[in-house]
């Protein structure tokens, strides 16, 4: 296709939107609503996933052993645990290390308190494995597996957090997918109606084009451009609104749950990180909806 023909198609596409203002605005509005909601769900999903990732690296499973168990047996237990695929890393913390860590965290620079214990280690039976998972949702299975190993006294895990985050994310995923699919269908339908209106307004022109020898592509291109433009315009506004409200929502949540038990897990993605992905996804979705809606219509109505 020549550059002049591309220019012609774009010009006619813009003309179509202008001629058919009300329907075009309705289509743009629906795409806006669709992509705004998509943006909100994306915020939630991306942040929950981020929190889970943070939780996975900060919250692990701690495995303690039966009293008086030997180093060799502990090594055997370690080897058995390592066979599991869901483990991302595993550290052995000896009783001495556990005691030193405890001293450092609890007594800090208080030498008197430290010296009071002299050579005794009150955490003599606290050797442990610290295990970090690559998928929090698999924590439950892993804990059950480790508990059954001979020589394991206790397994500590943050069961509630892991399960809660994981199931919340799945729920948000399903709800958002359902709503977005419904909204996309409405948007595609509205774009299709808009394009059909445009075709009926220009039916004389299209009839002449066909008689003169215009190709299918040349006749269809302005309507596809129209769909793409509607989709593109519909994707811009929600991005601007979401950009300005994102930080405000985060600030609000952080203040509201400041002293809540959840506050430990409330770590949010930076606005730049989230928009680096959201901008291209939203624009592509908008253009995709417009393209799909218009191509369906022109294929149905415009044949040479």
């Amino acid at each position, binding site marked *: 296709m020549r550059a002049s023909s591309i220019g012609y198609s774009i010009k006619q596409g813009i003309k179509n939107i202008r001629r058919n203002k009300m329907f075009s605005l309705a289509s743009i509005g629906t795409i806006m609503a669709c992509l705004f909601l998509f943006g909100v769900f994306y915020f939630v999903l991306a942040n929950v996933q981020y929190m889970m990732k943070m939780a996975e690296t900060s919250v692990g499973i701690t495995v303690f052993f039966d009293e008086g168990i030997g180093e060799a047996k502990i090594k055997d237990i370690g080897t058995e645990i390592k066979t599991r695929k869901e483990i991302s890393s595993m550290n052995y913390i000896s009783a001495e290390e556990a005691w030193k860590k405890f001293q450092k965290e609890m007594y800090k620079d208080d030498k008197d308190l430290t010296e009071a214990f002299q050579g005794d280690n009150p955490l003599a039976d606290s050797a442990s494995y610290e295990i970090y998972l690559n998928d929090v949702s698999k924590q439950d299975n892993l804990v059950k597996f480790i508990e059954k190993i001979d020589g394991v006294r206790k397994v500590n895990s943050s069961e509630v957090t892991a399960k809660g985050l994981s199931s919340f994310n799945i729920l948000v995923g399903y709800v958002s997918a359902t709503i977005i699919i419904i909204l996309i269908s409405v948007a595609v339908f509205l774009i299709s109606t808009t394009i059909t209106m445009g075709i009926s307004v220009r039916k004389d*022109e299209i009839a002449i084009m066909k008689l003169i020898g215009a190709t*299918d592509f040349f006749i269809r291109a302005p309507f596809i451009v129209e769909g793409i433009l509607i989709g593109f315009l519909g994707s811009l506004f929600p991005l601007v609104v979401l950009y300005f409200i994102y930080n405000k929502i985060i600030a609000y949540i952080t203040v509201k749950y400041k002293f809540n038990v959840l506050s430990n897990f409330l770590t949010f993605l930076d606005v730049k990180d989230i928009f680096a992905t959201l901008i291209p996804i939203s624009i592509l979705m908008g253009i995709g909806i417009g393209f799909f809606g218009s191509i369906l219509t022109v294929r149905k109505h415009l044949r040479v």
Partner: protein
Amino acid sequence: MMNLNGEHDRETELPIIAFDKVSKTYSTGTKAITNLSLKINKGEFVFIVGSSGSGKSTLIKLLLKEIEPSEGNIFVNGKELTRLRRSQIPKHRRGIGVVFQDFRLLKDRNVFENVAFAQRVIQEPIRSIKRKVPSILAEVGLSEKMQVLPKQLSGGEQQRVALARALVNNPVILLADEPTGNLDPKNSWEIMNLLEEVNKKGTTVVIVTHNREIVDAMQKRVITMNKGVLISDETKGGYSYEG
């Protein structure tokens, strides 16, 4: 090919349009054309006459491949239309210029843009459009009215714009469906004279008309149809149909 009398020899020359035992029955059961066979040679000037329902409009639609024949074969410019693929239809139509009784101009575009539209459709470069459109508008006598909208033109002028649009892509065939149907005698003759000029330059001209005066006066080949059947084909004929 011309014979000794300066007329086209229909028997020996390879036709530019040929209908071979063509019939067309619409899905409603209406028989529009029955067993039609005719040949039109390159450079001929032909009138097709007949009353409403005689199959004239169906003939034009078949030539443009807007519809398919129910039976028989149609050849245009050496190609059998039933064998053309969908993607080849635009190229086929570019070889045929069409003029209608109701002009079919784009009301929101000026004279220049209406003619340029035909060139844009076949994706001619802008440079060529700027050169060709004024030249063809000069040929039909509309150089002074390039920036005027169709509604500001007389019927005759509008038909001349339509003619310029049909000719700008240099078609080998010009089809005119009742080109004088909406015009007064003076404008009708102006259009017919233009069509004769076009024909003299080598374009095959096929005119579907009811205009008895013009058909009788021009003494060209006349094909008469009635109820989808060819009833006469005269080399220098007149408007013989009385139905």
